[in-house]
């Protein structure tokens, strides 16, 4: 082990050279560590995005099929019938391990009875509302939309901040089979209704029935985006999905459901499983992972860039160190010759070089651990900010396009057409994705990144020493030490 002692003596004697090597190796390792921790942070963020992106699978009426059935009907008055699926099937699909939660949606249209509906255009409060989705159906002619859900907190309107609870509480699964409702603030103010009050609505059927509803919460809707004449968003009352079903006479059945996934990566497999469980051709099962994809792409780009940093710095570092050591070996030929003349094996001489570099590596690792987190944080966040900007500008140019994707099953049917729904959903998705988008990367040095750094450092010095070893092995002691 004499070569270890020699390496120590050499480093101590050549302080300036050792310090220079320490600086070079520190610079290399700081960038390698930055790359590693950015990569790790991006991987963690990608995993988090996969879990929290909220990819949804919507089961909703197949509108093409609905219209074609209506047109092929031989009845005198053609009626658009919304298909339903048994709640047992919906719940069975909801119990899949990949589903985080689900939101059943049923809608019904009623008329205000003990209060007045909000009207945005003179005389529209009593006009039959309903867009293309509701045209021709007697069930959608009321001035109030009863939007039955499993949980208001999970509806698109609430998750995208289009609606916000301002008083009372949300509708939850425990409100099933009750007549508890959450009404809009304007509707509540206009009619002096408070949480705890009871309001009455009438069904739109020819033999109208009155239904007493208990107000358990008040929400505020942003009306600007969806306001249409005679179709004010304030007239949407949220309740449990069981109430519209009982009004429509479809107890135990629902017209649409949105499943939110635990893990966005399982979107395709889960869609397939849900299709099999629902097994109803009148329904279309479609997934919306736009938010996931929008959040995922910047992470993937950061990850790929960080990987390139690690490799480029490692390769460049190996070459730089290798060349420095080769030059150093040329300057140390006489020393090597003396050792060889003493009978020292060339492997031990290479071992001494390795030990010297290893000692410097330890010092450089300390420097890298002190600076790496700071540099990684700065570079990583700069990179992320750049990627987020690129991602937002890309999606910004496509959001609002009439893609026709279902609005998570949470938009009141019969209120808006498919095209508009699609556009609105994209805006909501972009907004939700922007809200969830990571603003900063959580770059921290973990034991595994230290091990990785150590491993990379060892490989770099091993390769550099191997490069230098070629010139050591070729040295002939006679040529170095004896010249006539």
């Amino acid at each position, binding site marked *: 082990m004499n070569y270890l002692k020699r390496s120590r003596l050499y480093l101590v004697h050549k302080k300036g050279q050792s310090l220079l090597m320490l600086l070079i190796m520190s610079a290399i390792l700081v960038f390698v560590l930055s790359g590693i921790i950015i990569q790790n942070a991006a991987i963690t963020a990608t995993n988090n995005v996969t879990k929290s992106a909220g990819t949804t699978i919507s089961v909703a009426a197949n509108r093409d099929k609905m219209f074609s059935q209506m047109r092929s009907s031989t009845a005198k008055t053609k009626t658009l019938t919304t298909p339903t699926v048994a709640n047992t099937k919906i719940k069975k699909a909801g119990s899949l391990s990949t589903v985080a939660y689900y939101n059943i949606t049923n809608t019904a249209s009623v008329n205000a009875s003990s209060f007045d509906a909000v009207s945005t255009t003179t005389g529209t409060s009593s006009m039959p509302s309903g867009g293309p989705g509701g045209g021709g159906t007697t069930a959608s002619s009321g001035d109030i939309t009863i939007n039955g859900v499993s949980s208001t907190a999970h509806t698109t309107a609430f998750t995208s901040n289009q609606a916000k609870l301002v008083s009372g509480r949300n509708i939850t699964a425990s409100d099933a089979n009750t007549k508890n409702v959450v009404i809009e603030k304007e509707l509540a103010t206009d009619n002096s209704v408070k949480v705890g009050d009871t309001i009455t609505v009438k069904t739109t059927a020819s033999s109208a029935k009155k239904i007493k509803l208990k107000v358990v919460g008040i929400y505020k809707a942003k009306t600007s985006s969806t306001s249409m004449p005679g179709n004010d968003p304030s007239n949407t009352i949220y309740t449990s999905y069981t109430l519209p079903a009982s009004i429509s006479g479809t107890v135990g059945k629902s017209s649409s459901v949105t499943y939110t996934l635990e893990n966005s990566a399982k979107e395709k497999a889960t869609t397939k499983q849900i299709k099999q469980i629902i097994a109803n051709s009148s329904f279309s099962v479609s997934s919306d992972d736009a938010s996931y994809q929008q959040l995922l792409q910047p992470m993937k780009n950061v990850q790929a860039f960080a990987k390139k940093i690690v490799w480029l710095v490692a390769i460049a570092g190996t070459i730089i160190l290798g060349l420095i050591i080769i030059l150093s070996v040329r300057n140390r030929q006489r020393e090597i010759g003396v050792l060889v003349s003493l*009978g020292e094996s060339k492997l031990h001489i290479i071992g001494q070089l390795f030990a010297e570099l290893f000692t410097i590596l330890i010092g450089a690792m300390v420097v890298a651990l002190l600076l790496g987190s700071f540099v990684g944080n700065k570079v990583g966040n700069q990179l992320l900010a750049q990627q987020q900007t690129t991602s937002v500008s890309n999606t910004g140019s496509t959001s609002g396009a009439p893609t026709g994707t279902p609005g998570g099953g949470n938009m009141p049917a019969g209120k808006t057409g498919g095209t508009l729904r699609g556009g609105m959903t994209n805006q909501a998705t972009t907004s939700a994705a922007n809200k969830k988008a990571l603003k900063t990367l959580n770059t921290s040095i973990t034991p595994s990144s230290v091990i990785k750094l150590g491993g990379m450092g060892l490989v770099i010095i091993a390769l550099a020493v191997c490069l230098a070893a070629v010139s050591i092995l070729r040295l002939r002691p006679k040529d170095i030490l004896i010249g006539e």
Partner: protein
Amino acid sequence: MLTVKNLTHWYGKSGKPLYENVNLSFTADKVYTIVGASGSGKTTFLAFIAGLDKPQAGEIFLDGENIEKIGATNYRKHKVAIVFQQYNLLMYMSALDNVLTALAVTASQHKNDKQYVLDALKGVGIEEADAKKNVQQLSGGQQQRVAIIRAMLVDANIVIADEPTGNLDDENSAMIVKLFQDLAHKHHKTVIIVTHDTKIAQKGDVQIKLAERQFMVS
């Protein structure tokens, strides 16, 4: 005993021998001096007997064993010690560490024995304070004495020196020659000194003159 048998050597593809069929023997307790003009091939000969190079033909035996069989690295490590004109010390070490390194590399009996080395260095006029200084801070004569102590303390029985007084003044040269004589006469080693200086050559117990491709023993 170191024996050279039928050693023949020529440079490159010229085919013209530097020397031909050289037969020499070197025994313990004696100082051998090899003297010759520059370019006569005396240092090349030293490289052969030191195991630093191989001749084109012929064999070298140590106590009846071919040094090729011993292996060049093993031969240099355990059997032979070399003293160079340029001292060839490790410049990043003290005199003490230089000698201790040689003892460790050659796995000699007194490895790790600092006091033994310090005493030996003191014996050639290098006090402990100087022994612990970096060798670059020592004079040429002191450095050469360190190199000789390094050759003396390792377990090797053969000490080969290449122009050991080439860079020294007369006073230091005399001291160095005395040290080599002590190595042979008191430490029972075989000392072979290659020199172009006839005065130094005359100090040898056996003088070998290399001229016109012939080694002449006197």
